[in-house]
């Protein structure tokens, strides 16, 4: 008991020291000619496979802007933190960046869980987060710039495309967490509305490796196409076991919402060949700006493919810099207002701009995976699509006004 009390006193003094530390102004490498921004991604743990490359693309944009003179005459100095694939760590590091490092904005996050964990921190301590990954929508905060696709910019265009192709009967398969559940909720509403059929709906725990029962259920349901929101390693098991059961993508097509060029490379293109994916950027989209972006990235990281979340991470930095220039200040309130009123620009992923609801107006694409690990573009939306955070069919009456 005595020991325990001593330990408590000891911890108490550590906490006091930590408080003191945070009260002392950050050791200012932030001399008047630099400005600090936070870069917060998982550099370790299960999400590192995806997030490290987004961090790289973010840093590339910062380097390029610095090389051409910085913003408002200041060099951008990134403070890189590791969210360690743990939502509570994201929240903790976000607070550290805002309070201790005094950053003017933060680029980061991947999983919806990490975003949900950071949101209260950014609301409470007045920060601005640039979030680069497609997500389930149904959220609207003035403290986050959502550049990743809203549901109506990725999953619904994919559904439109599938229906145009004559796929009427759709099987929904996902990992068991917030994004697949919400995405499928929206998909179900729209499939019913368009008088298609939901052949089945199945969820497998994140990281699950046995798909034998799911594959049997797919066989019973006889869908024309599978819409997959499986995430991570589960994809390897799923595609391997589908092929072993005699159902490769060529026989029963799969549309994936979480497999981009990086994942295709990790899983092995031969296993995924012929499957479809929907994104707002493929490395293979045409355009001189995209060529420059890909060349610059691969000059720094040879042999690494470029994909949608990386392009968003890259675009976010440029959009922030443009907004700062327009506002003439680093003040968060003015920067986010300026960011939502910028004109269209293209730094790689085609013409994009932020709408007044702080989500990105962007083009939707459907691609098919080639053996090279690149996607062949099969379809694209007629011009950029306006972002709709609250799907009117699934969440009637909710709107996002900021």
């Amino acid at each position, binding site marked *: 008991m005595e020991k325990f009390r001593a330990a408590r006193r000891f911890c108490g003094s550590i906490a006091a020291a930590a408080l003191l530390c945070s009260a002392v102004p950050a050791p200012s490498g932030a001399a008047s000619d630099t400005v600090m921004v936070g870069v917060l991604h998982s550099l370790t743990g299960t999400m590192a496979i995806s997030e490290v490359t987004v961090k790289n693309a973010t840093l590339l944009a910062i380097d390029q802007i610095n090389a051409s003179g910085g913003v408002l005459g200041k060099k951008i100095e990134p403070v890189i933190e590791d969210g360690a694939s743990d939502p509570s760590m994201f929240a903790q590091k976000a607070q550290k960046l805002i309070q201790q490092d005094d950053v003017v904005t933060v680029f980061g996050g991947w999983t919806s869980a990490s975003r949900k964990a950071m949101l209260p921190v950014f609301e409470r301590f007045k920060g601005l987060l640039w979030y680069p990954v497609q997500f389930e929508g149904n959220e609207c905060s003035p403290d986050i710039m959502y550049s990743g696709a809203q549901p109506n910019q990725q999953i619904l265009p994919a559904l439109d495309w599938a229906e145009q192709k004559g796929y009427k009967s759709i099987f929904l398969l996902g990992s*068991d967490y917030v994004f697949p559940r919400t995405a499928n909720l929206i998909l179900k509403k729209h499939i019913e509305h368009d008088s298609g059929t939901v052949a089945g709906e199945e969820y497998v725990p994140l990281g699950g490796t046995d798909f034998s029962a*799911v594959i049997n259920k797919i*066989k*019973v349901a006889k869908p024309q196409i599978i819409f997959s929101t499986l995430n991570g*390693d589960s994809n390897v*098991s799923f595609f391997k076991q589908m092929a*072993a059961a*005699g*159902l490769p993508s060529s026989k029963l097509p799969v549309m994936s919402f979480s497999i981009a060029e990086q994942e295709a490379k990790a899983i092995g293109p031969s296993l995924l060949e012929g499957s479809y994916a929907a994104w707002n950027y493929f490395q293979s989209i045409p355009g001189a700006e995209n060529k420059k972006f890909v060349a610059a990235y691969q000059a720094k990281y040879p042999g690494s493919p470029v994909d949608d979340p990386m392009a968003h991470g890259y675009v976010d930095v440029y959009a922030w810099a443009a907004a700062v220039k327009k506002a003439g200040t680093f003040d968060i309130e003015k920067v986010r207002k300026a960011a939502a009123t910028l004109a269209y620009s293209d730094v790689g992923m085609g013409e994009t701009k932020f709408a007044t609801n702080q989500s990105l107006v962007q083009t939707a694409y459907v691609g098919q995976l080639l053996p090279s690990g690149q996607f062949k573009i099969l379809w694209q939306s007629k011009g950029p699509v306006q972002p709709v955070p609250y799907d009117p069919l699934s969440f009637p009456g909710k709107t996002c006004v900021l």
Partner: protein
Amino acid sequence: MSESTLVLGQLFNGISVASILLLAALGLALSFGLMRVINMAHGEMVMVGGYLSYMSIQAFGQGPGFFVGLVVAFICTALFGALMEATLIRRLYGRPLDTLLATWGVSLILQQAARSIFGPTGVEVTAPAWLSGSLALGGTALTGFAVPAVRLFIIVLAALVLGGMTLILSKTKLGLLVRAVHQNRAMAEALGANTRLVDLAVFSLGTGIAGLAGAALALMAPVTPTVGQSYIVYAFLVVIVGGLGSLTGTLFAALLVGIFSAVTQIFTSVSVADVLLLVSVIVFLQFRPRGIVFARSRALEET
């Protein structure tokens, strides 16, 4: 595929899942069941087996590489197990909780080593051409009842390993010594059995089987630094439900767990089936705390 073939298909899947569980659990049945060592690094032996299979395929090509991989995985992980036993486990006998901590440390070291050597993304092991098809029994792959060749192969392999272990335990000198040490360690020692050597052999046989399992399971699941974690819980589950110290029990437990989860998945989702499985295991252990088959052993009664 109709509803009735779904039931048939799920029964086959149950047996297939049971064979996977059996492969993952047999090694544990040896080290945990016979030696009372809680080997948390058992899952990592499965992982190492997967990477060895990958390297063999890189070195010897698709067809022969896979079989070389099975052998290499067995031998290398058995040697690693021997090393672990001689340097670490040996010092911790009779302290199951300490073995848990120490082997957990080994498991973390192995995971990080795999991450440093092969990267966090995992590697690809593809089945040789003749294993990649499926045998359709009536109708096409989409409509009929098809049996994937890989799953058949794993069922056969699990049966062979189980048969081999039964033979070793019941017919060989080593098996006699293992049974003697298991029944009464002090008496066996007094009668001249070299228990240290027996422990070494049993533990490394256990890790070797885990490695072999890893090389085979790589055909169906990813090979990543953390893949071992997805097997370890179910492997312990099977060993405990089966009853410590009994291979027959392990076999029945694997079948029970595999078929139970496959059949419940006809009605529910994977997640709910998992919950039902764990609940029924807890209930089962209330009534039979020593598992399906209770092997009488002084070693077990003392602890």
